[in-house]
């Protein structure tokens, strides 16, 4: 990865591009006659992580675990209740740091639904050129940048620039969405289930395109997905979320080879495999995740965990190095109290 050429780099190569500290969002549930707050949905609860320059951080977890809320909190589409976001050394939204608007120029997002994320009344070129124009680029330059970007994502502008969203296929539309996200020349792109709705063959094409663009534009990706195979393919590091909290994080090889948290292992056990030698011996996960309105005390996974003990209900397990001492580098972190629960059982 060529990290020297980017003049926008402020914090130096060792400074993570994105630092998230104790990000929290609780949605009030209102009810009753006067609309009093009767409960809270703890959608994202004290989530901390970092994204290094030029890497791809994969975020996995089942639906409702707070992946997308985290993405929207980072983009400030939703205001967080608490927590700090530091972009390349500059605290976002801080008086002395980076304004939310300035942050949004450097951080962009691709949504899952390729159709609803394009204005049905705008042509492809207009959609891609829109954000640069709103930031003051003259119409003509914005248009030529849009055509350029359409070519970069593999769509001939002569053929597609003047088309409307309903005239394109899902894969083509998602390419346009990628081009639109790149129009402001961001450094970090959040891909929120960006390829999940596509056919497998199209998905592979778009993933390859994303990899190419990453190298070409010196991008950093935050790749949110529920598809474990795809995350393994694209990510450098992985973050596993459960019910609004981070349960495990580490390099992709470490997590996929030796998952420590019982939830991560259960998640991987649900992953379909074609290899009869790799059948998991562990019990598959049963039941639905608990209601985030009243999450279990202590470790949120304890209600579905085969290893749960008294301590799990009392203390929230901190993210720490695995208890077997195999990895003390701090790269691999797991939120579990119990040493024996962190051992991989399958052969």
């Amino acid at each position: 990865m060529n990290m020297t050429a980017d003049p926008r780099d402020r914090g130096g190569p060792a400074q993570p591009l994105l630092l998230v500290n104790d990000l929290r969002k609780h949605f009030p549930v209102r009810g009753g006659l006067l609309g009093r707050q009767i409960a809270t949905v703890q959608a994202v609860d004290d989530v901390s992580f970092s994204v290094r320059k030029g890497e791809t951080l994969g975020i996995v977890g089942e639906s409702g675990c707070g992946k997308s809320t985290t993405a929207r909190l980072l983009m400030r589409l939703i205001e967080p209740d608490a927590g700090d976001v530091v972009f390349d050394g500059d605290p976002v939204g801080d008086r002395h740091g980076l304004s939310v608007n300035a942050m949004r120029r450097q951080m962009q997002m691709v949504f899952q639904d390729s159709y609803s994320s394009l204005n049905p009344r705008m042509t492809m070129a207009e959609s891609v050129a829109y954000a640069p124009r709103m930031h003051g680029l003259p119409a003509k330059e914005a248009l030529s940048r849009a055509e350029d970007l359409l070519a970069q994502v593999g769509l001939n502008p002569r053929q597609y620039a003047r088309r409307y969203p309903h005239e394109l296929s899902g894969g083509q539309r998602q390419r346009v969405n990628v081009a639109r996200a790149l129009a402001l020349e961001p450094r970090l792109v959040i891909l929120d289930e960006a390829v999940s709705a596509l056919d497998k063959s199209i998905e592979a094409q778009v993933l390859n395109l994303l990899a190419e663009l990453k190298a070409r534009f010196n991008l950093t990706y935050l790749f949110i997905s529920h598809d474990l195979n795809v995350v393994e393919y694209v990510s450098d590091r992985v973050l596993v979320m459960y019910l609004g909290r981070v349960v495990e994080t580490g390099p992709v090889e470490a997590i996929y080879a030796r998952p420590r948290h019982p939830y991560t292992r259960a998640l991987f056990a649900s992953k379909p495999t074609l290899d009869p030698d790799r059948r998991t011996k562990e019990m598959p996960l049963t039941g639905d995740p608990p209601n985030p309105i009243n999450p279990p005390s202590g470790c949120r996974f304890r209600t579905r965990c085969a290893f749960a003990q008294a301590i799990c209900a009392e203390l929230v397990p901190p993210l720490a190095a695995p208890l077997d001492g195999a990895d003390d580098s701090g790269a691999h972190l797991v939120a579990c109290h119990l040493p024996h629960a962190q051992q991989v059982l399958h052969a």
Partner: protein
Amino acid sequence: MSQATAELVRRELGPVEITPIAAAPGYWKAVGQRLMRDPVTIAVTVILLGIIFISIAAPLVAGADPYAGSVLARLKPIGTPGHWLGTDETGRDLWARLCYGGRLSLLAGILPVSISLVVGGFLGILAGYAGGLVGTLIMRTMDVFYAFPSILLAIAICGLLGNGLSNSVIALSVVFIPPMVRISETVTTQARHLDFVEAARASGTTTMQIIRHHVLANVLGPILVYATSLISVSIILSAGLSFLGLGVTPPQAEWGLMLNSLRQAIYVQPYVAALPGVMIFITSMCFNLMSDGFRSAMDVRLNK
């Protein structure tokens, strides 16, 4: 396409030359082209323009004084020499009265709807986009107005302000604002949560820009269609107010008022008595069909 982009396309997509699709027109030009292929919409638009022209040019085309009656020429049938559409119960020329009546009827139909479109549309988009306390405040206030039947509300306001055309316009505007607010609030709320609005927000677009470029374009269609359908209601309601002596006052010519006063002659000259009603029917039909045609033409998804 710039030279650099063309170069990029060659490099990225190979030497395959794709014939460029015909330079697509801009949005409004495309809307115009689609309209041109819709004979019904063209026809009703021409009819409406004709009615509007005749109303404006009434002194030139009427050929008779709409207020000069004659006891001898009362309730003549259609086709009477000198009165080709017959005369009303005081012997006034019906063609002349229909021409002059169009002025007030169209005004009473279009003006309240336009006022409520602007005010109600603004409040609705504000309520839908802002949500929260502002939205609740606006919508609950509208609910209070909803509690009254529309004609009763109009009568109450007219009674308060006194009679006259301007007061009935005000009364009808107030009556039409709540449904307009409700429609625009609903479509705005729907549009606000679409991903492309979120994406625009995420790229630092200001709220006003988002409303102008993304919300309005997608919200205006349904609101306009609803507004045009209200024009016919407005014509009929204002006729009702005139009948009660609250709107336009006799001897002024207005279709609703004419229909009401010719009502008694329905057994003597049924065809003449029906004419003002026919005009109201044709006008409101044309407005409805035209709005429908425009909606289809403005929808890029329906046809190419």
